[in-house]
């Protein structure tokens, strides 16, 4: 084990901020009351949830009654898709999404296909951007939902959400966006962007795991996810995850408060990483859009080498990162996102994602690039693909 850990996997999860933990702690012990009970300690918790709901609503330009707390991003995505499908089946059975969505959306779509729904999976360009013309052309009279992610979790590309929302609105089709990676990082206004449903998660923004929310525009018919008590206006029963909700709201509050500063810091380190890798490591390709890109995302493919090997060697130096190689996905195919942007299989296998935070220093970034140079060279020297490439180019 290396002495010092350099964590560059903030798109996977983030540590809970100390202020967030401090806000949560009392709700485990002295403020333990069930928010649905009548006595005063419970009323206090109910108020705390109301305040949290208002806080969250404010971060996306809506009001508290449109925020539904869930157990996280995957649940929110599942709910948005399945419950809309069920509620709008009378209008039609067609859904439009993209090839680069998170599995929480893609596998839910596959489930719906097995239950008689038809799904159009839109292509993306080489930078992962959705083609608006293709999107508009895919809309049919029986289309009930368009689901396009706000920003991609692997390659960081930020989609033209406002334009997609306008198209959906013009055609009278509901629009859901998985904003798990973008929430508190990109400016979100559900009114201006015509977003009808939005998924977000706590642990990507310095909050706890196991909590998230789904924004549902008032008037959208959507079926209950969990039947039981009257929590979440009867749409998602079960005693509230009070500590989680308090933590989520605190994390969102802090992230929005510091948004400008965080973004500027991250962009500086991100661009430094990209510039150094492009300059110093040959046969590397930046994945994702160069401009319309999350401030914390760096994703490269290094030819002739495989991602898991890179990750283990980086781990040996105390660096935490991720890859889209098959070996890390548990299947034979590399990441669906990298294939969708047109990468050949063997190049997709050699991808590396570094997702930084505002705490990442330039020294850490430099150490990562220095380590990466050494590792890529070492792995290329044992790669038969590199050997062939060098021989053929002589």
């Amino acid at each position, binding site marked *: 084990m290396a002495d010092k850990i350099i964590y560059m996997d903030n798109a996977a999860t983030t540590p809970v901020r100390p202020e967030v933990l401090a806000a949560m702690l009392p709700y485990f012990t002295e403020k333990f009351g069930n928010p649905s009970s009548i006595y005063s300690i419970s009323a206090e918790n109910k108020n705390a949830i109301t305040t949290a709901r208002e806080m969250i609503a404010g971060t996306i330009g809506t009001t508290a009654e449109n925020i539904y707390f869930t157990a996280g991003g995957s649940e929110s995505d599942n709910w948005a898709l399945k419950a809309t499908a069920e509620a709008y089946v009378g209008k039609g059975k067609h859904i439009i999404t993209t090839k680069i969505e998170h599995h929480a959306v893609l596998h839910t779509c596959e489930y719906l296909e097995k239950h008689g729904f038809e799904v159009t999976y839109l292509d993306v360009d080489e930078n992962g951007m959705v083609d608006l013309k293709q999107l508009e052309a895919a809309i049919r009279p029986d289309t009930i939902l368009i689901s396009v992610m706000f920003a991609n979790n692997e390659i960081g590309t930020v989609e033209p959400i406002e334009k997609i929302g306008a198209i959906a609105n013009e055609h009278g089709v509901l629009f859901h966006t998985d904003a798990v990676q973008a929430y508190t990082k990109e400016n979100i206004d559900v009114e201006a962007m015509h977003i009808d449903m939005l998924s977000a998660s706590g642990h990507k923004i310095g909050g706890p795991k196991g909590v998230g929310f789904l924004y549902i525009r008032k008037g959208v018919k959507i079926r209950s996810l969990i039947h039981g008590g009257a929590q979440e206006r009867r749409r998602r029963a079960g005693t509230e995850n009070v500590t989680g909700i308090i933590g989520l709201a605190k994390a969102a509050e802090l992230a929005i408060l510091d948004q400008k500063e965080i973004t500027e810091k991250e962009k500086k380190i991100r661009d430094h990483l990209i510039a150094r890798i492009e300059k110093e490591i040959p046969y590397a*390709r930046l994945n994702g859009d160069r401009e319309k890109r999350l401030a914390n995302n760096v994703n490269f*493919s290094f030819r*002739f*080498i*495989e991602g*898991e*090997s890179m990750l*283990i*060697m980086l781990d*040996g130096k105390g660096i935490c990162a991720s890859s889209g*190689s*098959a*070996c890390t996905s*548990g299947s*034979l195919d*590399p990441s669906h996102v990298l294939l969708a942007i*047109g*990468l*050949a*299989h*063997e*190049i997709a*296998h050699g991808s590396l994602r570094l997702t930084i935070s505002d705490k990442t220093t330039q020294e850490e970034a430099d150490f990562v690039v220095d380590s990466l140079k050494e590792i890529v060279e070492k792995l290329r*020297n*044992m*790669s*038969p*693909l*590199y*050997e*062939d*490439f060098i021989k*053929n180019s002589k």
Partner: protein
Amino acid sequence: MYSEKVMDHFQNPRNVGEIEEASGVGTVGNAKCGDIMRMYLDIDDNQVIRDCKFKTFGCGAAVATSSMATELVKGKTVNEALKITNQAIMEALDGLPPVKVHCSLLAEEAIHAALWDYAEKNGIKIDGLAKPKADIGEEEEEEEY
């Protein structure tokens, strides 16, 4: 997830490299699936494997199984090398996670492919050796991005 031995063979792989004018060279696997192994054998007139080197594109287990395979074949006769199974390679590494068992099969195939090449070059037949299935050189074109 990997045993200490696997980590050792991944981080300090034995016998990485090429052999100029090798007696036999075999390449197996497929870049599409993320594993390619190439094995070089130097075999003397008594059919004893004097030296063995490898190059591998693949995950930690792919590198470690290749490394272990080279160690196991060194000093063996051609017939002894042919009997090295993926099971033996795995045991020598103190086991592999279930999803990585195919890496050990690939290492076994790499030995066979190199032996096949040796047999072809020298016009000899090795009992019990069948033509290996895949040589990426024949079927996979290098793709550009």
